[in-house]
């Protein structure tokens, strides 16, 4: 768990603080996404957590210990760190790269070797094939997987990730995001994730912290932020299509009425598809009811346009 209280950092010569009395709490095992326009302080905040940047005021407490009370080098060896350009060591093999922190911590060779293989398999890379390769032989997506494996090597309770998928092409990025989500949920790590992409934030985050000019504007679950943006800035930031984004978070099977039988020739949609896809299908076919198909293809309920409307009923931000 990470508790940030009144964190402040001002760089010399800057007009306003990079981080301005930031206060937020990341629950244990949650993914907290820091997002905002360029210069909002999200990366600075992340880098203060592992003391790559020293704060001017306020406190950061990680799992009960104030980061200022721990020697920075020791602190960093127990926090996973993934950056956008990854920074794999070009002169070391993949195995040596992944083994970096365990070696710094003095693990024995056998334990390290086993851990390297375990992690490479975890991120979807065959250890036998990739252990002895070098970074320059890898594609962008592969490098990023190794970067994640490297950060997980010493099994840190907390991970910091700064736009980790920013340098990857869009197709690979989506793929990596999904895989990564799966891995993270299994491992139950507390993650602070920085991005500028609102869609990525909604996908990856259990909590989203929207920042602007160093200050925290809104901190809540993705659903809550989409339903009720705190002000005009947030509303513009999440996009004019936030209603549709909200629908993308809900599956058809979650919004269906299981008691109603589907009309005979009704078009259908898979239960696992989102309401957004359901809406799109309704619009393109000109219908207002879809049969929801279960995992084996049989109809298990219906979803209606009315039900979708009910889900998106929100108060406009300007009414607050």
């Amino acid at each position: 768990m990470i508790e940030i209280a009144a964190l402040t950092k001002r760089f010399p010569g800057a007009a306003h603080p990079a981080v301005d009395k930031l206060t937020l709490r990341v629950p244990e095992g949650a993914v907290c996404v820091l997002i905002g326009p360029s210069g909002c302080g999200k990366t600075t905040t992340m880098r203060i957590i592992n003391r790559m940047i020293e704060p001017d005021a306020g406190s950061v407490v990680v799992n009960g210990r104030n980061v200022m009370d721990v020697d920075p080098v020791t602190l960093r060896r127990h926090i996973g760190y993934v950056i956008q350009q990854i920074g794999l060591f070009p002169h070391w093999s993949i195995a040596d790269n992944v083994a970096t922190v365990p070696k710094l911590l003095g693990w024995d060779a056998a334990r390290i070797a086993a851990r390297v293989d375990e992690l490479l398999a975890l991120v979807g890379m065959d250890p036998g094939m990739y252990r002895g390769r070098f970074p320059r032989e890898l594609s962008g997506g592969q490098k990023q997987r190794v970067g994640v494996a490297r950060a997980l090597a010493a099994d840190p309770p907390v991970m910091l990730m700064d736009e980790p998928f920013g340098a990857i092409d869009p197709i690979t990025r989506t793929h990596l995001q999904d895989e990564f989500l799966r891995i993270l949920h299994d491992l139950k790590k507390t993650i602070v994730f920085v991005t500028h992409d609102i869609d990525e934030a909604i996908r990856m985050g259990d909590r989203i912290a929207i920042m602007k000019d160093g200050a925290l504007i809104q901190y809540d679950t993705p659903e809550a932020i989409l339903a009720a943006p705190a002000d005009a800035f947030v509303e513009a930031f999440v996009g004019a299509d936030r209603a549709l984004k909200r629908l993308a978070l809900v599956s058809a099977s979650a919004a269906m009425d299981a008691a109603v039988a589907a009309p005979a020739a009704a078009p259908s949609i898979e239960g696992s598809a989102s309401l957004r896809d359901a809406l799109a299908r309704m619009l393109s076919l000109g219908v207002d009811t879809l049969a929801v198909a279960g995992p084996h293809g049989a109809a298990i309920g219906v979803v209606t346009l009315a039900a979708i409307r009910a889900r998106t009923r929100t108060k406009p931000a300007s009414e607050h």
Partner: protein
Amino acid sequence: MLLVEAWQFILAHPERFLSALWTHIALSASALAIAIAIAVPLGVVLSGTRRAAQFAIAGANVGRTLPSLAVLALVMPIMGTGFVPSLFALTLLALPPILINTYTAVRQVEPDVVDAARGMGMTRNEIRRKVELPLALPVIFAGIRTAAVQVISGAVLAAYIGGGGLGDFITAGIAMMALPQLFVGAIPATLLALGTDRLFGALQRAMTPAGLRS
């Protein structure tokens, strides 16, 4: 003809030849070793500074342009003639390329790699030892290679300030217009220089970490 006569000269004066050869190698190797011992650590330290580095690198750049013989000659009125003044001058000549290459090489290590190393919990020393130096080594070694050839070439000129070495045969040969003697100096010196370049080239390849070889 000339080559045969040169060879006969060597056979007739083996101690003179070997002594000159040995002095030449000793002078060159010592100058190079001292220059490495000074310039590599200095270059590494300077890579972390701003002002001091600008100053030192500007000085090294000037040093690099100075004619070798001029440097050797300038040392003479101050330190006299012989082995030590020659060693001093040759060391001065070897410093600039090594210093500049070391400084540049360390600074050119990708900042992201250093950031990742720091973020993962390496101490400043560990970053230097495990990341910056290995990655900088190829370029540092290129500087050492350049300096090595320069020093061998300069050691030939050391003959003029009493440093001994193969240059003695060349100067004597020119003064007396005795071509065989001239060859006794010129050819071994050339072979020594070419051989050194080859040797350091091979060492440079051997020193390049596996991950960086293309």
